[in-house]
């Protein structure tokens, strides 16, 4: 339609050159056919899934707080979707490497809230402080995925004497509990106060959170503001009771349970290989230790808190006269 096309049509009107052109074209075609013939046999398939030596994903932690342990196990799958609770051909065992005791775990299929399925293996087991446990997941062909975790060691508590003092006419009481050999921040720190004479005529434990914790290397100091705790406890109890003692528990995670940069960021942690201690597989196996200590407060401190010391239990009915912290006492 345009000039360029017209020029092209004129260039083709040279019959005396067709012989040479045909030979050139034939040569080019032969070369092309040879190349194409060689390449047409090339592989067209693609294998996006590279078989490796990773067999299972393993998630969970051994927990000293419980007498039954659970881990979630899943075979590394060739498809994204899990459409049915297919049987998992895996044998899960745990071994206490300190004692050599071995336990075979039992499978259970769990339906989650989103409708998906998972295999949660479980076994009755009480774990022991400082012991290292290995959990192995073994395929029928003997290929194994495993992970080890060491239960946090028992820390040493040092209960400082409680002190009571007069603060501008108001009696106050404080106490410090120092935990040694705790390399990381405890997951939980709970303090309970025991009182005699509950609803069941036995005793009542009331929990009040500690106010402050502070790290000094692997030493943690827990500050108990007994005065403030007393206010709260009195409000819950309604009337002064006989205080039996105080207990404190801390829950510790094992050393491997540490996130990059100290932040739980799913975008980062979900990347395969990040935050994983599983060999020949993926996932994470942790351990939780739970430790506690108990002590009694001196009558002076209990009195300063507005409660009745145990030796005054018989005089419980008179305790109302001592309610509140009176200045100058």
């Amino acid at each position, binding site marked *: 339609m*345009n000039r360029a096309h017209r020029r092209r049509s004129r260039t083709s009107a040279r019959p005396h050159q067709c012989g040479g052109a045909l030979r050139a074209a034939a040569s080019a075609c032969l070369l092309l056919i040879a190349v194409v013939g060689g390449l047409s046999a*090339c592989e067209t398939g693609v294998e996006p899934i590279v078989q490796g030596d990773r067999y299972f994903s393993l*998630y*969970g932690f051994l927990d000293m707080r419980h007498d039954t342990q659970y881990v979630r196990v899943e075979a590394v799958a060739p498809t994204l979707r899990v459409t049915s609770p297919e049987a998992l051909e895996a044998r899960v065992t745990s071994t206490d490497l300190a004692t050599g005791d071995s336990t075979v775990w039992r499978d259970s299929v769990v339906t989650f809230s989103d409708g998906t399925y998972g295999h949660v293996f479980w076994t009755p087991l009480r774990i022991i402080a400082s012991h290292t446990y290995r959990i192995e997941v073994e395929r029928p062909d003997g290929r194994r995925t495993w992970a080890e975790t060491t239960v946090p060691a028992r820390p040493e508590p040092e209960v400082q004497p409680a002190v009571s003092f007069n603060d501008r006419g108001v009696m106050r009481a404080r106490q410090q509990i120092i935990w040694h050999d705790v390399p990381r921040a405890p997951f939980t720190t709970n303090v309970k106060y025991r009182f005699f004479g509950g609803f069941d005529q036995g005793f009542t434990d009331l929990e009040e959170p500690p106010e402050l914790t502070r790290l000094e290397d692997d030493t943690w100091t827990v500050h108990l503001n007994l005065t403030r705790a007393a206010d709260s406890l009195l409000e819950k109890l309604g009337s002064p009771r006989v205080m039996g003692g105080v207990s404190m528990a801390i829950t510790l995670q094992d050393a491997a349970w540490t996130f990059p940069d100290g932040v739980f960021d799913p975008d980062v942690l979900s990347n*395969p290989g990040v935050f994983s201690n599983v060999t020949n597989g993926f996932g994470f196996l942790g351990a939780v230790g739970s430790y506690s200590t108990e002590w009694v407060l001196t009558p002076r401190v209990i009195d300063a808190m507005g409660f009745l010391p145990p030796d005054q239990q018989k005089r419980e009915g008179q305790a109302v006269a001592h309610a509140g912290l009176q200045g100058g006492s």
Partner: protein
Amino acid sequence: MGPSLKRTLVALLGCGVFLLAGMAPAHAQKATLRGFVTDAEDGQAFQGVNVYLETVQGELFGGASTNVDGFYAISRIPPGRYVLHASFIGYQSVTDTLTLAADETITRSISMHVDASELGEVVVESEQDAGAATSTAGLQVVRPEDIARVPTVDVSADLVGYLQTLPGVVSGGDRGGQYFVRGGTPTQNLALLDGMIVYQPFHIIGFYSAFPADIISEVNLYAGGFGAEYGGRLSSVVDVAAHEGNKQRYAGSVAVTPFLTSALVEGPLWPGRVSLLASWRESLIEQAGPAVVGQELPYRFGDRFAKVHATVSPSFRLSVAGLQTHDRGVITPGEDEDELTVSAGKTGEAIWENEAYTGRFLFLPAGFPMLGELQLGFARLRNEFVSDDELQRFSSVSEFDARVEFNYFLRATDVNAGLFLRTARLEYQLNDLFEGFDENDEYVTEVGFFMEADMRLAPGLSVTPGLRVQSFPSLGRTSVEPRARAVWRIGGETGRHELSAAWGLYHQGLVGLNDRRDAGNVFTAWVAPERGHDVPSAQHYIAGYRVEPVRGLQFSVEGFYKMLGDVRVPDWAVTPNFQTALQTADGTVRGVDLRLELTKGAFYGYASYGYAAVEYDAVFTALGEAPTHYSPPHDRRHQVNALGSLSVWDFDVSLRWQFGSGQPFSEAMGFDTWVPLPDPSADVGEEPGIRRVLYLSPYEGRLPTYHRLDASLERTFPVSRNVGVTMQASVINIYDRSNLFYLDLFTLRRVDQLPLIPSLGLKVAFK
């Protein structure tokens, strides 16, 4: 406006004033000859005509070659009598005797007539500035006859078929309309049709673009190193000039193939002065696809183009043009239309529509050796993604352009300078597709100017330094972009050896966001980069050598190196997230193109090899603070193209084979469920977890190679003196190779490119 911008503007203004001040006395006492050359047969602009002056004693004074508008100018002519010659092979030479006075500017337009005595003797190798192997510092000039040689499914050729034969141009596949040039992404390419910006110039089926060959006069394809007149993109420029339409008589054609039906008409609205060119194409593939290919092809597309060109006076030309395109289809059709694929944008219908309109005025100011050009334009792209008949997200960019440009002609230097203003309205509602870009409606204005001087320093040696300054006042961003190109044809204009080089700095103020991890996801949102982020930038370095050892044989080699900065890439994720976070990446592209072109009588052969290595460095959130070094999914390292065509016994036979090495993808070890364990309160029996892909390192695998053989056979039967019928038979993918188009790692679903496609086309043309 910051102090640095003020200093830059003042400095450039000073340079401009100095340059123009220098021009005026140089021009004094000298005459200028200029004008337009047209083809007498159709009244259209005639490009490539050699216009030169001789003294009456027969000494050559100087000359020029007409540009795409048919314009020529010869400046700094001493007063006296001269003989004007205009010649083009196959046309009668025009000779005219002129007397030029001091300070005189004469406009002399020329009409060229076909020389009937030379019919059959024309050789195309005289046109050394065009052809597949004639790449000069990143620039390749493409003519319609080059496009027509490539076998396609259509009896009418399309520019996209030719682009696919070029080394360094990587197609995203035979659907989706995504093209990558020398490592750049599709939104880093600038496509212009008669100066109109076409944001998404390629149709959803990869055999078609918005540029049918029948409307094309010339294409300047810059694979890099483009000059100061172009800006706003990092990678390449496809500058298409439509021809003007026949000013003498009506002509046209109607064509039909299983894929497309088309019609074209051109003719004089005012004989000799005003012409109309109109083209219309509409797809048939949705209806014919199942019968031809044996599978559903749910695609619809089409385009309409019209252009009115007027020769208002010898010194004033006007053209008005408009383009509309529409595309819609499911890029990766399949049975897996479940929640996962839909929410990730993998299943659904992609829709886009282009609109572009322009008015272009060419004028020759009286008394100045200058060509002036004023262009006003409007361009719009609307991009939608629809699933279950509901609009999931959309993006729209509407842009108004104004540009004034002057070409000042000196004896050995042409100065081209211009000012431009663009205001774009960016609307998008992305439904959380990209993190940080959800919903917006903003106006962004860009102003700037450019200047470049094409200096012919010696016979065959030209150097073109240039500078472009563009500023986004509302965003507080200004970029200063020096450019330079140099071409040295050793031995003068007729020399056989040519060296060329180009260098330039480029910035992209508006960014097209697309999730490049997924070939099936073509939705693109045009946005202004976030405040506080640098705009993407690139530096191009190009050096090339071209030789014509014997007539009809050309060989060229061109090396290139690009440095990329602050390009937007999708963040790395192992879960099938709907939302894609974006990161910035720096990178490099290095490569080399080899081209060999042979014209021997009725045979034409072309072979090319392209090597390109694209490498990015980006910090991915999931992989830590250290940058990840990787090759993005469009890194096709090796490309081979071979094309042969033969005209024999009135048949045109074309054969084309293309090969591409595998592109990167991320291999995986499998899938599992990631169970978050933030602390000992977690319960593995309650927490469902998140399904994820267990990737190996990003993009370290390679997909299978791609190759395909296409052929076409065509013959035109004259029905009468003015009517011809062209029949074409073609086969695409002759050996029916299963070339991979798309692999969804989350579902392992594979979508192949189109299988063997036989096609018959019929075209009736009248003139």
